[in-house]
């Protein structure tokens, strides 16, 4: 688990109301650097989502690490993406496989955002990351 993620996660867990929690998440989204418009292609778009989510999951061979970038046109989903990015960015495939996003979202009281009915692209992002890690793991 990255230090950034641990910091973010403890911040969210300290929220005393759901309103505060969502404020934290939306602030987190604001810290995510926006994707350049040129990268917001249909190919990068997670299909079938109400919130637009663009994502790139790449594998850096020299660093043996996953590189994930993403953006969304909604504040909440963008915040959740920032959370996922903090959770997985820079990890080796083996480390990625050891991190369960569902457990983390459960701990943060955000698990409903990974449900099928949300259709928000966050679940798809987690699955893409996991699939990539499985392919690259030794």
């Amino acid at each position, binding site marked *: 688990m990255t230090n950034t993620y641990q910091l973010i996660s403890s911040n969210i867990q300290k929220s005393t109301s759901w*309103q505060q929690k*969502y404020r934290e998440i*939306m602030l987190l989204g604001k810290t995510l650097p926006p994707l350049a418009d040129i990268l917001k292609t249909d190919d990068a778009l997670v299909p079938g989502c*109400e*919130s637009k989510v663009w994502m790139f999951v790449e594998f850096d061979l020299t660093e043996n690490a996953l590189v994930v970038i993403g953006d969304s*046109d*909604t*504040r*909440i989903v963008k915040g959740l993406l920032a959370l996922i990015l903090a959770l997985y960015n820079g990890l080796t495939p083996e480390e990625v496989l050891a991190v369960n996003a569902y457990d983390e979202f459960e701990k943060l009281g955000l698990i409903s955002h990974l449900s099928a009915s949300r259709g*928000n692209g966050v679940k798809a992002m987690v699955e893409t990351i996991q699939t990539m890690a499985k392919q690259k793991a030794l």
Partner: protein
Amino acid sequence: MSSFDPKKIRNDFPTLNQTINGYPLVYLDSAATTQKPQCVIDATTQFYTSQNANVHRGRHTLSEQATTAYENVRTLVADYFKVTSNEIVWTKGATEAINLVAHGLRNTLTAADTILISPIEHHANIVPWQELAAQSGATLKTLPLNADATFDIAQCCEVIKRTKPALLAITHASNTLGNITDLAPLIASAKAVGALTLVDGAQGALHLRPDLKKLDCDFYVFSAHKMVGPTGLGGLYGRYTTLNALSPYQTGGEMIEKVTLTHSTYRNAPAKFEAGTPNIAGVLGFGAALEYLMKLDLQTLQQYEQQLFIYAASTLSKIDGISIYSNLKSNIGTLCFNYKNEHPYDLSTLLDNYGIAVRSGHHCTQPLMSHLNLNGSLRASFAFYNTTKDVDQFIAALKECIALLD
């Protein structure tokens, strides 16, 4: 409003009496599906508890009772719409009913024909016609639409006169905006050029309870689950001769007259379109729903829904930064809106945390959304079991959500 007591009505709907995320549920998604009164739940349970048997197939007592009860509901639907029971076909919903008609016209339409629809239709009343056009070679055209997504009826009638479509398929009320279509002149114009007419009543059937003989359309489709009935059931009304002339949709048991190993003959409508074992429990539950609805005086019900809608629309429009897209003058009780440039997803997610159930997105009307230049919207849809208290809770929560975003 002596005969209509909103508090009493509300108690008939057990789902409404719960808290969501720690707040009392405010259900404003009746355009997607309505809640069910206890009598509907009881009728479905009772069928499985004591009446379960297949219909039209057994001489034993249970089967005969089930068949009678099942066919009685067909009569009840016919009464509701003021038509005859052999003009009612059971389907699994409005979508299947439209597909049934589109499929049934495959051998009738040719490349010389035009199918006319409107740009505000639900995808269920667009895609089957695209398929039919592709299959038959017919041309698919759309009616003109004002910038605010209302119809210029005179202009539409002109287009009907000019295009002489073989079929006009149009909604009774928009699921996204709630706008009611002024159908009478459109149907009259269509009839004048010999066009068939299909009305998508998924939204209109509950709120407008149309007299279909007066409306004079050839087909009218509806979904039971949007009329306080069970899911998985809907129906098609078809003017008998026109209905019976359609080719069958699915084939198999129940719909046949005589089968040899090489050839079969079909029964007449409605049986012709009802292959296989139907949704018997759904039909019986829907029977209870129709009895429930018909006990409510239509005028009183509509008056109540209108008052509630006007109240909701006026309080919503007082919030700075809200844009409402619905036509408030002629509406079944649906508010389509956005707040500034905020994504509707964020607002519906935050509203859910306050126990407010609204929809966000394109509401299966992408062409309408692009006409309005929107990526999506919020939709609050009301029904007669909603109260002014619901409106107040909704508006208060919306203000809180806006404060969270600003």
